[in-house]
């Protein structure tokens, strides 16, 4: 039995497998299938100060080895979350990460401040949602705007602050460095790649939002590359995600430099995928004679 514990920005995880924001709701649904306390952590559904209805349906389209979504940050708002979901979640022995977003800098500051007053363990600043008109990815695509939002939010964050990066940029490592310089405690990546599908019969985009975010195994090689690039340019921990489906994928992501991983789309076709990853990882480490999973982080040997 290898030691699966990892520590990211001072927070201890029982294992490095976290469910990705927007793919696991606030945990209740999957807890009907298995005890979600078995997970290293949960990145909760993206939250805003006030309720958001999200985009009109259809909000999902299938793609080769992947999917597009255009949910658009639907969520009940902070107050409802605290009342209806926090009590259940806090009974669970797993790291809780509040994924937060806003349309303006003030929104970001407001939600970060409020969330800091709750029992969550970390805050993940989503500056990379491609599915909302204002805010979201708009903040995440230039070093200046990314740095600016982190600078402004930082004083309100009383919990370790993870900044979630967009892959729809020319130089993701530069943006990671910019947010590191403003005091981000960690970065997570990748959010979804912007994509589109068109229905031949109606000649309409399948998504009512026209475009949406690509995730799932298709994006895995892009995610590994970005995690590797970012990890080699920042000192803060990197949480890696994008297309992880198997324990092999999770190990690959950790070798590339991820101190922990998140899994999203894979849940939809295999709800047990995170548990299988934890188990497989454990076996592999034992076979390899590696005592602690943290030993493999960033251990890729580039040519």
């Amino acid at each position: 039995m290898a030691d699966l514990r990892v520590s990211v920005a001072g927070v201890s995880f029982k294992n490095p497998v976290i469910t990705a924001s927007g793919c696991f709701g606030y945990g209740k649904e999957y807890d009907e299938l298995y005890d979600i306390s078995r997970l290293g952590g949960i990145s909760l559904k993206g939250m805003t100060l006030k309720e958001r209805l999200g985009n009109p349906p259809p909000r999902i389209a299938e793609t080769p080895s992947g999917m597009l979504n255009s949910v658009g940050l639907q969520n009940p708002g902070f107050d409802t979350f605290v009342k209806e979901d926090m009590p259940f979640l806090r009974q669970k022995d797993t790291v809780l990460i509040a994924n937060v977003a806003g349309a303006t800098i003030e929104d970001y500051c407001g939600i970060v401040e409020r969330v800091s007053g709750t029992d969550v363990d970390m805050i993940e600043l989503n500056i990379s949602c491609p599915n909302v008109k204002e805010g979201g990815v708009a903040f995440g695509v230039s070093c200046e705007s990314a740095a600016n939002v982190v600078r402004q939010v930082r004083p309100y964050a009383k919990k370790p602050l993870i900044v979630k990066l967009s892959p729809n940029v020319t130089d993701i490592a530069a943006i990671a460095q910019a947010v590191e310089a403003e005091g981000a405690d960690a970065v997570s990546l990748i959010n979804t790649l912007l994509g589109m599908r068109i229905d031949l019969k109606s000649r309409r985009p399948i998504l009512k939002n026209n475009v949406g975010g690509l995730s799932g195994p298709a994006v895995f090689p892009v995610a590994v590359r970005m995690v590797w690039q970012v990890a080699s340019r920042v000192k803060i921990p990197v949480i890696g995600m994008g297309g992880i489906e198997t324990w092999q994928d999770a190990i690959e992501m950790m070798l590339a430099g991820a101190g922990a991983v998140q899994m999203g789309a894979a849940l939809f076709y295999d709800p047990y995928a995170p548990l299988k990853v934890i188990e497989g990882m454990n076996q592999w480490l034992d076979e390899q004679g590696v005592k602690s999973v943290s030993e493999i982080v960033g251990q890729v040997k580039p040519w």
Partner: protein
Amino acid sequence: MDCMRESQKRQGLYPIVKKTACARQTYDVTVLCPDIAKTASPGQFVHIRCPGVTLRRPISICQVDAQRGTVRLVFEVRGRGTAELAQLGEGELMDLLGPLGHGFEILPGARAVAVGGGIGVPPMLEALRSYGENGTAILGFRSANAVILEEDFLQNGNQVRLATDDGTRGTKGFVTQLLKEQLEQQRPDIIYACGPTPMLKGVAALAQQYGVCCQVSLEERMGCGVGACLVCACKTLRENGYEGYSHVCKDGPVFEAQQVVFE
């Protein structure tokens, strides 16, 4: 509808014990899945992993045999996922996640009319099962050769009225005509409906006109199937009168017709 709360989700590989083709490109499959069958109720669905595609495909539960531990699914080949499903033969395994969602409310001792259009017919079978002769199935199809499950409703003891678009079986025209006739004759306690949106709209309007409670089963593209990803949104009226999004996989697929905002 407390029955729903108790239905317990399972995911696993379950053997196909019977498979027949029941119409052109339409298959009738019985799967041995005792743990799913045990708690499944009418109007719920299973979410099926199909080889070669990424996302699961939702298919309504057409019949449940809790004793035998089987669930019956009737589906039409529409695209790649259902085409792959259609390849699976008896003895092969199906990856099911279910039972999922919120089904029909069954009123013991009452009269029910179920209106099904095309591939919306299957969930009606289980919905009407307990009603026997107090249940009437109004079923619409494109054409005579697309008619499915007629015998099965008769075995339920239900009355069956058919309509086809081309008049090759039953009345020529829409199920809504037949429903209207039925409502004129005898008002049921509840109407169940599943089928294309224009049909559902029509049924909902008639139900309201005649003051009959009506439940409709909706379709939307799905991701997780359990209520976690929020992609399967459909517009509904909230208690406060405002419009908002509910989710077909968890709050539905069955909704009170008057709550649905048809677009």
